[in-house]
């Protein structure tokens, strides 16, 4: 199913470009026949590369990295679920020229390995078009980009040329060789349209798997709405009751509960909560007892946002923070 959001995006792009690229006829040949055919592939690739490179980003997770690709001028990013690892996670996105911006993960599909993220700094970003007509076929020439082995400004992202060698509903396989750091990076057709996102490899060299665009299109709205889909191997759903705030509270005369102690390096401490602060409401619900507060927290999972209305030094304040993982 095609989302209205994507239609708008696609139309906007079509208007801004003089020609909507046709499917290259070289794809209809079983193999290039001669040097002329090879030159056609080379010419399409060298033409498509500069724009594709500009929109390909490194996703810096601190202790590691993956790749991603920007698909709207506002900074919507497609990447892999095992790269973002969850919903609402913040990370740094690095463009090929070294420019760094903050981004936050939106939804993901833990079964197909598809994920979305969004740059949260306002700006206009270089982006690529999504192949949303499902026209990519077995044997089509494609190229992969990605920050193989991590970001290297002098090197830039790494190009690999290959063909679609296997295809099923939820996965495409190419002979563009991938390595660690490429995950979440883009697979393009020869006109520079995005056809897949790098996901995983087999033990044998030519097994390189990508999430096809149709998998993204199928769940586009849910992912854009920050939903965690499926129970697959690529991301682990945060568990209810595992959300960790890091305070102990006591009952109080009148409304709310009073903070008695704040755990060191807890989300509460990082958000500036201090002993003596009073929580009046949590997510809009008035707090009345210690037990009720505990019950409300039990419904929360790691990474869930929690909004407090607080009383501090006689003044009312509001504060939103994200819970950590009780086990981690």
């Amino acid at each position, binding site marked *: 199913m095609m989302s209205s959001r994507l239609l708008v995006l696609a139309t906007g792009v079509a208007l801004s470009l003089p020609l909507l690229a046709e499917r290259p006829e070289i794809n209809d040949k079983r193999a290039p026949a001669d*040097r002329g055919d090879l030159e056609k592939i*080379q010419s399409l690739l060298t033409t498509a590369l500069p724009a594709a490179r500009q929109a390909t980003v490194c996703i810096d997770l601190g202790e590691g990295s993956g790749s991603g690709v920007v698909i709207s001028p506002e900074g919507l990013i497609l990447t892999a679920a095992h790269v973002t690892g969850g919903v609402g996670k913040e990370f740094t996105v690095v463009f090929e020229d070294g420019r760094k911006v903050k981004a936050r993960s939106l939804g993901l599909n833990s079964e197909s390995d598809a994920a979305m993220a969004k740059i949260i700094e306002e700006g206009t970003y270089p982006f690529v078009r999504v192949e949303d007509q499902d026209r990519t076929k077995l044997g089509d020439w494609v190229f992969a980009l990605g920050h193989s082995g991590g970001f290297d400004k002098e*090197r830039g992202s*790494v*190009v690999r040329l290959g063909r679609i060698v296997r*295809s099923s509903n939820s996965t495409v396989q190419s*002979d563009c060789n991938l*390595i660690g750091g490429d*995950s979440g990076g883009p697979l393009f057709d020869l006109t520079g349209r995005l056809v897949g996102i790098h996901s995983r490899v087999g033990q044998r060299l030519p097994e390189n798997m990508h999430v096809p665009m149709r998998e993204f299109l199928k769940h586009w709205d849910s992912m854009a709405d920050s939903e965690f889909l499926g129970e697959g191997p690529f991301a682990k759903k945060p568990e209810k009751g595992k959300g960790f705030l890091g305070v102990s509270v006591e009952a109080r005369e009148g409304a709310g509960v009073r903070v008695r102690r704040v755990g060191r390096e807890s989300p509460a401490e990082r958000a500036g909560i201090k002993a003596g602060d009073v929580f009046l409401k949590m997510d809009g619900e008035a707090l009345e007892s210690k037990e009720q507060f505990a019950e409300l927290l039990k419904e929360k999972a790691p990474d869930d946002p929690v909004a407090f209305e607080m009383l501090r030094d006689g003044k009312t304040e509001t504060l939103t923070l994200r819970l950590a993982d009780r086990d981690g």
Partner: protein
Amino acid sequence: MADFRLPILLLLGLSAMGPGAQSLESTYRTAGPAVHAAFDSVRDVLQTSSAVFQRGRREVIFGTVVSADGHILTKASELGELEDLTVLVDREAYTHPRLLAEDPAWDVALVKIEASNLVPVRWSTIDEAPQGTWVVTNGATTRRQRRVQVGVVAANEREVFAKGGTVLGVELDPDAEGLRVAGVTEGSGAEAAGMESGDRIVAVGGREIASREELLKDLKERRVGERVTIRVRRGEQTIDLEVELAGRAELFGEEQTRNDAMSGEFSERRTGFPRVMQHDAMANKHYMGGPVLNLEGECIGVNIARFSRCETYAIPSLEAAELVKRLMDEPALR
């Protein structure tokens, strides 16, 4: 350790593809015979202008023919002893190759075979081959036939620094004041220069050095193969030693990363090159040393290191041609 994301299927317990997958016959894949056939005219250049160094029936390394009378450029660190090597060019086998010269910064050797009327590569004069340009290079070979592997120019040309910096090959006494040598590493530049345990390093390249930190900082900015004058105090004497620097990873080994584990046989000497052109043709460490050709059959580089599963480095043609000229003018080594 940094975690560069990419799951391996086996670890996930998944089969490669779901049911009902369509598959492209292997001959039509990028490394398949039907695709390679389109490169036949370039393959002819590999047939005449690339060399195969064999020990017995095993390929040791490839080479690039750079003169009609038998000069061949290859990767020095993979060559080993020359005596028992046979060199194949086209369908001829040549024995007793001689080592004429080496350049440690580029890890190349210039070798001579007794031949005439060979067809040297035509060096491309393009300053930097654009990314996405087809590259054609040596694949598996038979006694009679060179075969191709193909790919594209894959990243920016650049210098690749030695992983972990350069080293002299000494162990310093951590308890001593100043820089007292406690041990000299076998096969290192320090050993070749005659450095001894007990020597005290006082200056590097004419600059006084007082601490380990200063020494590391100085060496970090230098290149593999560079010769640097190390002044040492030995008893009452002050001695200047000419030490050739090595890459840290080469001399002391390196920890295998997950990316290395999925990269098959990569080159042992794979970093520390003044300039590389990168491509994505399939290869392993034995496929280095041969020419990298464009569709015109011109040589745009010489393969110098298989870095990983998807990255191969070549010396760009301008630098390679320059290097050949320089090495040919050098007096023969042996």
